[in-house]
C-alpha cells in the first residue's frame, strides 16, 4: 500500500492561511491504514487546526469528512456541497490530483506520500517499491534495489559498503542483502549476472494505463 505521513502543522497552516472554510478530507484506504488519513486523524487534525488558528486570532472554519478512496471520481461525487473555499486532502498524491481536477476550489496536500510499503507491525512500514515501471524483483530475490539502495543502482554493492552497511550508515546495504538472499534461495547464478541500466522512461513517460485498449501501452 501507499505509505503517507502528515505534514508539519506550520506548513499546513501556511497553506490554508488565506481561506475561510476548509474541508479536511480523509481517505479510508491507504492513508487510513497508514494511520494518517482516517476519520480519527481527520478529526484530530481539525481540532488541532481550530486550536492553532484561534490562538493566532484567525477565523478559519475546519470541517472533516472521509472518502473511501480519493483516487476514484465516483467516491469524490459522494461529497456534499458545504460552502468550502479549500480542501485539505489527507489522501496520497493521486487523491490530491484527482480532487484538484474534479473540484473548482484549491486542494492542498496535508500529507506527504512517501513510498509503497509493507507493514512491519503496529505503525511501522518498510519502503519496498518505488513504482519504477520496470520490476526486477524476480532477479533480486524480492529486494528492490531501486527502493532500498539510496543510489538506486542496478549492480551492487558499490564501494561505499562496509560490513554489510550502507555508507549512509542508517541501513543495511540492499545489494549485500540481495546477494545473501539469492544464495539462500540457491540462485547463485543471478549474483554474477549484470543488469542493464534502468529505463527511466517507464516511469517518466508513462501517462496512463488504459486496459480498455488491449495491446497498447501509453
Amino acid at each position, binding site marked *: 500500500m501507499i505509505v503517507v505521513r502528515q505534514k*508539519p*502543522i*506550520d506548513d499546513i497552516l501556511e497553506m490554508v492561511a488565506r481561506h475561510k472554510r476548509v*474541508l479536511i478530507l480523509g481517505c*479510508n*484506504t491507504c492513508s*487510513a*491504514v497508514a*494511520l*494518517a*488519513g*482516517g*476519520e*480519527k*486523524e*481527520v*478529526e*484530530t487534525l481539525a*481540532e*488541532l487546526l*481550530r*486550536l*492553532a488558528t*484561534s*490562538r493566532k486570532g484567525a477565523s478559519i472554519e475546519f*470541517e*472533516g*469528512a*472521509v*472518502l*473511501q478512496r480519493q483516487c476514484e471520481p465516483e467516491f469524490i461525487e*459522494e*461529497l*456534499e456541497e*458545504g460552502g468550502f473555499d479549500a480542501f485539505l486532502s489527507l489522501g496520497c498524491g493521486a487523491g490530491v490530483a484527482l480532487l484538484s481536477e474534479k473540484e473548482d476550489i484549491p486542494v492542498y496536500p496535508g500529507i506527504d506520500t512517501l513510498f509503497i510499503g509493507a*507493514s512491519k*507491525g*503496529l*505503525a511501522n512500514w518498510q519502503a519496498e517499491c518505488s513504482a519504477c515501471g520496470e520490476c526486477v524483483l524476480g532477479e533480486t530475490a524480492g529486494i528492490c534495489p531501486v527502493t532500498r539502495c539510496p543510489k538506486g543502482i542496478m549492480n551492487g554493492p558499490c564501494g561505499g559498503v562496509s560490513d554489510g552497511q550502507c555508507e549512509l550508515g542508517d541501513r543495511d546495504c540492499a545489494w549485500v542483502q540481495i546477494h545473501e538472499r539469492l544464495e539462500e534461495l540457491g540462485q547463485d547464478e543471478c549474483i554474477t549476472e549484470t543488469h542493464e541500466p534502468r529505463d527511466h522512461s517507464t516511469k517518466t513517460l508513462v501517462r496512463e494505463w488504459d486496459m480498455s485498449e488491449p495491446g497498447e501501452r501509453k
Partner: protein
Amino acid sequence: MHSTRTTHDTRTGDERESRLFAPCRAACPVHIDVPGYLTAVAEGRFTDALEIVLERNPLPSVCGRVCLRPCEEGCRRCLLDDPVAVAHIKRAAADFGSYPTQQKARPRPETVAVVGSGPAGLTASADLAELGFQVTIYEQKPELGGMLRYGIPDYRLPDYALDRDIDYILSRGVEAVTDARVGADITLDELADANDAVLVTAGLQASRSLPIEGADLPEAIMALPFLEACARGEDVEVGKRVVVVGGGNVAMDVARAARRQGAEQVHVVCLEDEEEMPASDFEVEEARQEGVHVHCSWGPAQVVGDGTVCGLEAVRCTSVFDHEKRFAPKFDESVVQEFEADTVIFAIGQAPDIGDLGLECTERGVPEVDPTTLRTGTDKVYAAGDVVSGPTMIIDAIAAGHRAAASIARDLTGDGRMLADLDEENAVLGEVPETMSSKLETRRRLQMERLEIWEAVGSFDEVELGYTEYEAAREAQRCLGCTTGARLVKEKCAACLTGMRVCPHGAPHIKVGGYVYFDAEACNACGACASECPAQAIAIEGYSEEEMSRRIERQLVHHGMGTTLVFACGSAPVLPEIPGDDVRLLTTTCHLRVSERAVLEALREGASHVVFAGCVEATCRFPYARPIVTKRMKQIQATLAEIGMEDSFVVIGGADEEELAHL
C-alpha cells in the same frame, strides 16, 4: 464530521442484531444490562447507571440491598477471584444517581387496577404507567410495598430506601389507594367492572402453621405478624429465649429480628441439613455472626408448655425429600431434643390469602393462570407474582410484574412487542479464555462497611452502610466488561489490522474476505483497539468520541479563565489534589478512552490546562495497555509543542510535587 452521501451503521446496545448477554445479565430474571451500568458507575456516571437499571427494574434501591443476586453467581470473575459486587453497585446507583423525572408516554384512556403493592404489583404498575395507562394500586396495608415493607426487616431494607423507589414509581403517574382490602372494602368484580383490566399481585400473606401439640399457645406465633410488628416499629415481647422454626430466608430474618427485640438466645431449628437449607449462605452466615444458633435436621414434635411456652421438642429428621425430590420428611423419633424457649416463631412458609377475591383456584389455593398471558379464569383479571408461583426471589416477582404488564398491554392495545421481547432467546457469553485470564490481575471484591455486630443487634438500623461513590466506582472497575467490548462497524473498516496489533488478548481475528471480527469471549473492553482505530470503526459500549465531546462540553460550559480539566483514571485509589481555583474532574475507565482529539477539544473549549491524573502501574486495570497510553501522552505533548502549547498538558501519576509544580 461533514457528511458524505454514504451513511454508516451506528446502532448501539439493544439495537444490535444478536442478543448476546453477559452471564450476569442472562442470570438476572429481568435481564438488567449489568455490564452497562457497571461501566457507567466505573466512570462515576451514577445517574446514567440508574437509568440503565430502571429500564428493566423499577426497584433499584430495594434490589441493591436485598436482591438474592443470581447475577453475581454468573459473574465471569468468579473463576479469577470474587464476583463483582453487582448489587452493592446497584445500590450506589440508586443512592447517588438522580431518578428521571420526565414522563415518556402520552396518556391513554384505559384504566388498570392493581391489587397489592409488592414487587410484582409495583413493577407492573410502573410499566403500565410508562405506557400511558391509568393505573391505581389497591393496598390493604396503610403504606405501599407489601412484603418489602412489612416482611423484610428495616436493618436490611429501611423504609427510606424503599420509599425512594416507590416515590419514583408514583411519580410516573401511578395512583394508590391504601387501607383498602379488595374482597372486603371493594370486591374484585367491582374493580373489574370499573377498569379495563385488574391485576392481582396479592403475594403470600398467610403464614403456614404446624399442626403439632402446643402450637396454639399464646407465645407460639407466626413469622409474618411478628415481622410486620417489627416493621411498624412496635416492641414485641419475645423473652430472652426464642426458637425459630424454619430454614429459609424468612426464618433468618425472624431470628435476627428477634435478636433486635431483645432475645439473648435465638435458636433456628430446621428440618433440612446444612446443604439443603433453602436460606442463602450469606443470610445464614450473617445470622450466625449476630449470635443466632442454627440447628439442622430437627423436626418439631411439640411446643412444650403449660399455658405458656417453655420450649420446643424436636426429633431427629433423617431425610426431607423422597427419591423423586418431593417433600416427605422421615424422622428417627428415638433421638429427641428440647430447645428451651419463651417464644416459638414459625417461619415454615407462606400461603396466599385470597379466599375473599372469588378467583378460581387450584387445590393448593393458588389462582389458576395461563403461564404466558397470566390471565385468570375471570374475564379481565390477571394474576402474577408469588400469589401464583409460590415464594420466589424479589427479582422473580419483578419479572412476573413485567410479564403481567406486557400481557395486559397486548390485550388492551394489540401491541405484543413487549411480550415478544420477554420471550426472546438470548445467547450467553462463554467462559474467560486462557489468553485473557493469564493477563488479568487478581483483585478481590471491595467489602462494604457494616455496623459492628454489637451495634447491629441493638437496633433495627441498616446494617450495610453502602459504598461511597468512590468505592462503588472502584468495585465497578473490577468488571470484565463482558459483551460491552469491541464491535466492528463494518462499513467504516479500512482493514488496517491496527486493532489486531494492539489487542493483548487476541480477540480480533481476520475473516475470509479480509474483514476483522471480534471474539467477544476474549474481549474485556479495555478500548485499546477502538482508541487506536484510524477509521473509528470500532465501537465500545459506553464510549465514543461524541459521548466524550458531550462530557467535555458539560464540564467546560461555564468555565472561567484558568480552568483545569482533569481526566482521572477511575482505577486510581486516591487522586492527587490538583491546585487551582477551578478544577473540573472527568473520570474515565482508562486514559485509553481520552483521545488526542479530546485533549485538543478541551483546550479549544477554553481549558487552560488538561491533566491526565492517576495513571499508575500499581492500580492499573489494563496494565498491558499502559504503553499505548504512555505513547499517546508523548504524542499529545509533541503535537502541542508544534503550536507552542506544550505547557497546557500535564501528566500526573500520583501526588508527585514535582509533577504538580508544572501547573
